[in-house]
């Protein structure tokens, strides 16, 4: 703990953004109300999933930790890591967030909420993608699509750095964790090793008690 405080004193920018755990009081809703809130939240976000969907992660964090108190910051970081480690598209994180939103109501509602959340985040973008596929030849030379593609690329770049920074602040509460993150970041860019190796080795280091939080 002393090490963590010293670390935050050295990096005040980190300390300023580290959120306090569980100060947030969850809203009282009945089961169905909770489910509808989860579904409408993710339906509304679907079309903002620029550049592959990972751009939504800071928004997911805001919604599930700060706004609705579905999860603690630590739980959010855990679920993000699990979704990255599990096989399949990492955007399935939304299913885990939905599960967390209804966990207090028991496993049944947690699963219903998880499926509802995942379907909600995928439905609008899927429908748009079907239209895009069928109309692509008309759209491909439109100035709108050219401006959209060129213009939103740099914004995606900025968002991805904001996402990386956000997760780093959430995850790394001490120098060892930060060092692991930076090494993994470099290896992700410079090697062709599967990221599963990095997670397995870091998990081992954590299990041995070398990464506290």
């Amino acid at each position: 703990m002393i090490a963590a405080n010293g670390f935050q004193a050295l990096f005040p920018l980190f300390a300023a953004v580290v959120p306090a755990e569980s100060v947030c009081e969850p809203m009282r809703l009945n089961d169905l109300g909770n489910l509808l809130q989860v579904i409408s939240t993710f339906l509304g976000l679907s079309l903002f999933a620029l550049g592959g969907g990972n751009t939504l992660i800071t928004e997911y964090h805001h919604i599930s930790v700060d706004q609705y108190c579905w999860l603690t910051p630590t739980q959010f970081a855990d679920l993000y890591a699990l979704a990255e480690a599990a096989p399949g598209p990492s955007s399935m994180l939304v299913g885990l967030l939905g599960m967390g939103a209804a966990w207090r109501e028991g496993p049944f509602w947690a699963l219903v909420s998880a499926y509802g959340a995942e379907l909600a985040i995928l439905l609008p973008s899927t429908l748009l993608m079907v239209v895009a596929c069928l109309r692509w030849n008309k759209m491909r030379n439109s100035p709108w699509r050219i401006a959209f593609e060129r213009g939103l690329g740099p914004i995606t770049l900025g968002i991805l750095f904001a996402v990386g920074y956000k997760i780093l602040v959430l995850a790394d509460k001490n120098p060892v964790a930060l060092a692991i993150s930076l090494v993994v970041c470099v290896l992700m860019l410079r090697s062709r090793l599967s990221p599963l190796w990095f997670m397995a080795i870091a998990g081992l280091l954590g299990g041995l008690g070398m990464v506290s939080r």
Partner: protein
Amino acid sequence: MTEINPNPNPNPNLSARIVPNPTLRQLFLGMLQVAISAFGGGLSAWSQRIVVEQRHWMTNEQFLAGLTVARLFPGPNQINMAVYIGASFRGLSGALVALAGMLLVPFTLLMMVGLLYFSFHELPLLDRILAGVVAAAAGMALSMGFRILDTYWRDPMALLLATATFLAMAVAHWRLVPVVLVIGPLAMAWYWPRHPASPTPEEHS
């Protein structure tokens, strides 16, 4: 929607390797195969290998064109690609079937992981292991931006827009939607094509 191929290829020599119009069942099984093959990672590569090289549903050019669309539109790239493949052959029902094939197994597994996590995450050993895994995952998250940085390195306006976006979100704590709605139109205006009539090459994939 009929499952009989309505358009048998008149010239088998020209594109004998392309088997057009997979059925809904084939689309589902194909995407299921992609999802299961990619358990160790590399979803995009497996998708290409199975759709183009093994099943010959598309030429490589068609596949790459689809990937361009999938990356352009909102939504996870690989899920959009599955939707694109399904929709190209069987419209909306093809898209939904391909999506289901892609997600069925990994999502079911992830739900089991989630149930285990919420049941047991307070165990000290699990919490310690997760502390390590989370640090690695944070490194992966950080690498996402660097990975596409090269594309924009020589474009000062792109770097300015990216920096403005980063500062708005990370420092000023703007939410994503206002950031996109404010900076997006400015960026689109700046990059509006000067000669809209000229056809565009398939630039950055």
